[in-house]
């Protein structure tokens, strides 16, 4: 159920169906019509071409045959002249005479006769242009010649331009034409027709005759002797080509442009009703197409008459005449039948135009009716579409009532049903959404309340360091009057010196990039420790190996970053938790100070003890001096007093040195084993009376950077506890070892142990089981404080009446690190 985003495409689509329907009707109706029309046109054209082609071919063939007969007839009638007995007799005599003349005399003779002919010598002229043979020729040409073979007078055409006869030497024997040359033996027609005496008919090519000022062609026939053994002369007849062929060709016209023409194989027109005789066809590429030695028709790219349109040309060779022309001069004659394409294809183009016009009318009707029909179909669909769009928007509406009685009506019913189902489903969804929204609100509120009830300030900042949330504690801590500070940059709110700001920015960046993370969840051990020492913020100290504290409004805060997961597509934010440790550190400092005083008391007791013995000695020796008279003995006692005094002086010197160190001690490298030894000696001197067996097992240890007195104080407190627990004797074991970059110090006694219910409280301040004056209840607290300050741990394990084990673990850290920490 798509809801259109913009109204424009839907407007566009509105007419889509109608257009499609009209288009498909057009495709179904008009396309086949168009294709059919085109096919009919092409098929019709093809057929017209085929029919015209074959007709043209037939016409060409028929005309060629007719012209062949005309030529054959002309040939045979002219041949009648060559069998004239008188002529043959004359020429035989001439031959015989020639055979008696020697070659040397023949040439001058011929030259002489030729000159006589050209000079129009009357006597000589009369021998050639007059006489029975010339009369015979004249009768033949005039059409009054009657031969036995021809029962009717031959109607000779007036096409003959010249007619003359030569003898076997090529000399003119008889001529109708006084302008004819005298000698012919060197001319092509003569040589071809004489053919070295064998004799063969000759038909010459069409050429312009300057004498007759027209295009002519020659027919030459050999005159054979009476035996038909050899040629004794040659007859030449020159025809006007146009006049000779036109009666057979030019009369054949069909339609406006259809006609027949005769060309030779050079493409020269012999006769054509349109082109003048002697010209060449306009397109030379046509010639090979239309001059094969068989009849046919071809579609040609031009018409040969100057037109460049595709033409249908029928052609046929003059097979009989060509036999002579080809042997005479290599040319052949061809009929060429042509009609212009416009005329040829005119009717079908006319038909096509009309059909196309009616087709267009039909298409127009189709579009109109189609539009109406499509509208009828599309209208209910559009109603359905409108309804579907409104359903999509969630506007449930009245059921659609359509009565088209087809699939659309069914579709409308389906839409109605869908509408109802959607309506019921939407109702359920809405209540669910409301419920979830309420839950989210509740969660938000409760989270805010939880955060507000947390005593530590919590600040959440966005990716650009802008404040996103402040809980109640932080508002109080930052002394904010107006509650709305969201969006304010963090460092505008926290007034910090630039180096601290830079450090915090770097940390924010690290947290955002996921490098700096919250500390891992506390192990059970750490939890126990927490229980043992609520004052010790172990997790803070271990969180990154780096103490994070900052001064704000004259208060000290320890802080911690945490990453806030961002919703998809947003940059993660960072949270900041602050803890006010101002009081805590004050308390701890006071504790340490108090303990120092306590240990000073212990020290004083020790000093008292140390001084007491020599003092008793001094008193005793003094009393003895009082009663002794012997100067020797007095001297001896005095020496004793001096000795005791020196000893006391050394005790006092030691004491003053110790106390001085306590308050001004700097961190140095401490040998743990030596420190333990020293502490043990000091404590042992206090508990001299206790029958305790001491065993030490020291492994070689690296020196640790620490304040020797502080460390000594921690050891003193633990060892003192051990001695106090073993008032009735026992064994004290002190061992050191190195395990995984840590120094483990085990102090084990076999004393009375600790009650299990007291065990969790041993590190609590002022917790003690000792009698009045024996202990302050701060010994282990201070020891714990000192050890943890060094990054170490201290644990106690005990069983009632079986003794106690104290384990001190000190990390072996680099000096640099330690120094930094101290700074």
């Amino acid at each position, binding site marked *: 159920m798509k809801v259109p985003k913009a109204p424009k495409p839907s407007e566009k689509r509105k007419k889509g169906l109608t257009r499609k329907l009209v288009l498909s009707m057009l495709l179904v109706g008009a396309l086949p019509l168009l294709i059919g029309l085109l096919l009919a046109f092409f098929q019709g054209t093809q057929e017209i071409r085929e029919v015209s082609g074959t007709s043209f071919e037939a016409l060409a063939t028929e005309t060629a045959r007719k012209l062949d007969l005309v030529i054959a007839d002309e040939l045979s009638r002219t041949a009648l002249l060559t069998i004239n007995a008188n002529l043959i*007799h004359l020429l035989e005599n001439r031959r*015989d005479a020639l055979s008696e003349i020697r070659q040397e005399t023949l040439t001058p003779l011929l030259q002489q006769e030729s000159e006589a002919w050209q000079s129009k010598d009357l006597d000589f002229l009369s021998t050639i242009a007059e006489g029975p043979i010339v009369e015979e020729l004249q009768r033949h040409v005039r059409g009054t010649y009657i031969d036995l*073979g021809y029962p009717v007078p031959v109607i000779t055409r007036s096409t003959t331009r010249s007619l003359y006869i030569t003898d076997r030497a090529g000399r003119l024997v008889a001529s109708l034409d006084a302008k004819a040359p005298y000698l012919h033996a060197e001319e092509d027609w003569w040589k071809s027709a004489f053919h070295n005496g*064998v004799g063969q008919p000759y038909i010459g090519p069409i050429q312009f005759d300057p004498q007759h000022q027209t295009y002519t062609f020659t027919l030459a026939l050999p005159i054979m002797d009476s035996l038909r053994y050899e040629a004794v002369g040659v007859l030449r007849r020159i025809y006007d080509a146009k006049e000779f062929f036109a009666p057979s060709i030019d009369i054949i016209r069909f339609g406006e442009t259809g006609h027949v023409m005769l060309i030779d194989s050079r493409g020269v027109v012999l006769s054509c009703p349109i082109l003048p005789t002697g010209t060449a066809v306009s397109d030379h590429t046509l010639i090979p197409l239309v001059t094969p030695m068989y009849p046919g028709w071809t579609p040609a790219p031009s018409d040969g008459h100057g037109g460049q349109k595709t033409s249908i040309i029928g052609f046929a*060779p003059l*097979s*009989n005449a*060509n036999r002579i022309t080809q042997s005479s001069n290599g040319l052949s004659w061809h009929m060429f039948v042509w009609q212009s394409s416009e005329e040829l294809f005119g009717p079908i183009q006319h038909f096509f135009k009309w059909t196309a016009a009616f087709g267009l009318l039909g298409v127009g009707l189709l579009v109109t009716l189609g539009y109406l029909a499509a509208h009828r179909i599309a209208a209910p669909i559009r109603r359905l579409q409108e309804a579907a769009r409104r359903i999509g928007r969630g506007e449930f509406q009245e059921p659609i009532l359509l009565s088209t009685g087809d699939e659309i009506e069914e579709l409308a019913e389906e839409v109605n049903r869908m509408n109802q189902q959607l309506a019921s489903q939407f109702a359920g969804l809405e209540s669910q959404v409301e419920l979830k929204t309420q839950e989210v609100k509740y969660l938000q509120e409760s989270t805010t309340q939880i955060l507000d009830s947390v005593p530590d300030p919590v600040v959440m900042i966005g990716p650009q360091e802008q404040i996103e949330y402040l809980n109640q504690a932080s508002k109080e801590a930052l002394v904010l009057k107006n509650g709305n500070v969201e969006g304010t940059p963090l460092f505008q709110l926290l007034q910090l010196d630039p180096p601290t700001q830079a450090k915090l920015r770097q940390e924010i960046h690290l947290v955002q990039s996921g490098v700096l993370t919250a500390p891992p969840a506390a192990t059970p051990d750490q939890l126990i420790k927490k229980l043992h020492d609520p004052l010790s913020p172990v997790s803070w100290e271990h969180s990154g190996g780096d103490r994070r504290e900052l001064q704000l409004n004259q208060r000290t805060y320890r802080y911690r970053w945490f990453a806030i997961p961002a919703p998809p597509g947003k940059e993660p934010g960072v949270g900041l938790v602050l803890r006010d440790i101002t009081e805590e550190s004050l308390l701890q400092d006071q504790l340490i100070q108090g303990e120092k005083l306590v240990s000073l008391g212990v020290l004083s007791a020790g000093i008292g003890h140390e001084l007491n013995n020599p003092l008793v000695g001094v008193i005793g020796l003094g009393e003895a001096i009082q009663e002794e008279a012997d100067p020797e003995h007095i001297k001896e006692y005095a020496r004793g007093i001096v000795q005791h005094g020196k000893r006391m002086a050394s005790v006092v010197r030691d004491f003053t040195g110790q106390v001085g160190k306590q308050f001004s001690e700097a961190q140095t490298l401490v040998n743990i084993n030596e420190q333990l030894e020293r502490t043990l000696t000091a404590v042992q001197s206090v508990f001299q009376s206790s029958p305790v067996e001491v065993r030490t097992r020291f492994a070689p240890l690296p020196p640790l950077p620490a304040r020797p007195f502080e460390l000594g104080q921690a050891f003193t407190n633990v060892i003192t506890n051990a001695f106090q627990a073993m008032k009735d004797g026992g064994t004290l074991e002190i061992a050191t070892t190195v395990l995984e970059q840590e120094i483990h110090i085990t102090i084990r006694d076999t004393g009375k142990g600790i009650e299990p219910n007291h065990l969790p409280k041993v590190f609590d301040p002022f917790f003690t089981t000792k009698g009045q004056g024996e202990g302050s209840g701060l010994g282990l607290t201070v020891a714990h404080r000192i050890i943890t300050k060094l990054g170490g741990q201290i644990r106690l394990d005990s069983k009632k009446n079986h003794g106690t084990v104290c384990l001190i673990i000190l990390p072996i850290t680099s000096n640099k690190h330690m120094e930094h920490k101290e700074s």
Partner: protein
Amino acid sequence: MERDNPSVAQRRIFSLLAILILSSSLALEAATDPPSTPKGISPEKVADYVHAIVEADRNVYTTHIVKRMQDQGVVMAREDWEGKNAIPLPAQFLHYSSKIVAESGSGIRFRLISLWPIYLRNGPATEFERKALEQLNANPNVPQRGIVATGKKQFFQAVYADKGISSSCITCHNAHPLSPKRDFKMGDVMGAVVITIPLED
């Protein structure tokens, strides 16, 4: 492509013809060479030899080429064979070979004549030829011989009967529109071969 076949066939036939004619003209040269025969050889003999060769050539063409080709449907012999898918008729074969012999300039000529020619030019040229044809019609086996002249030139002529040896000769002459006689039968004398030999002075 189709048009190539007849031309190939024609070329083959013409090469065969050329061989035949060459052999016949060699024979003629041998026969008309007086110095090689001190005793001389009579024109009658020469004409007989030439006729035997001409006759044999034409018969070979008729029976072994034309008939065979037509029977096997390879190619037909017809008068307008040029430019058609066809080969020359046996009579045309003789005309062409006659023309080639004439063009060779050896002097000896032969041609085919008839009293019933399709083309008038193939009728008898002289009275002698007419009579000879009539004689042969009556008595085909005796060739007619004689001396004839044109002007001052003298020739020996021998005329040999030419019989219809193939059904194609008969049917063609009986069917041709220009044929003056249409009842030829096999073995009939249809015309004659005239051999003309020039006589030396």
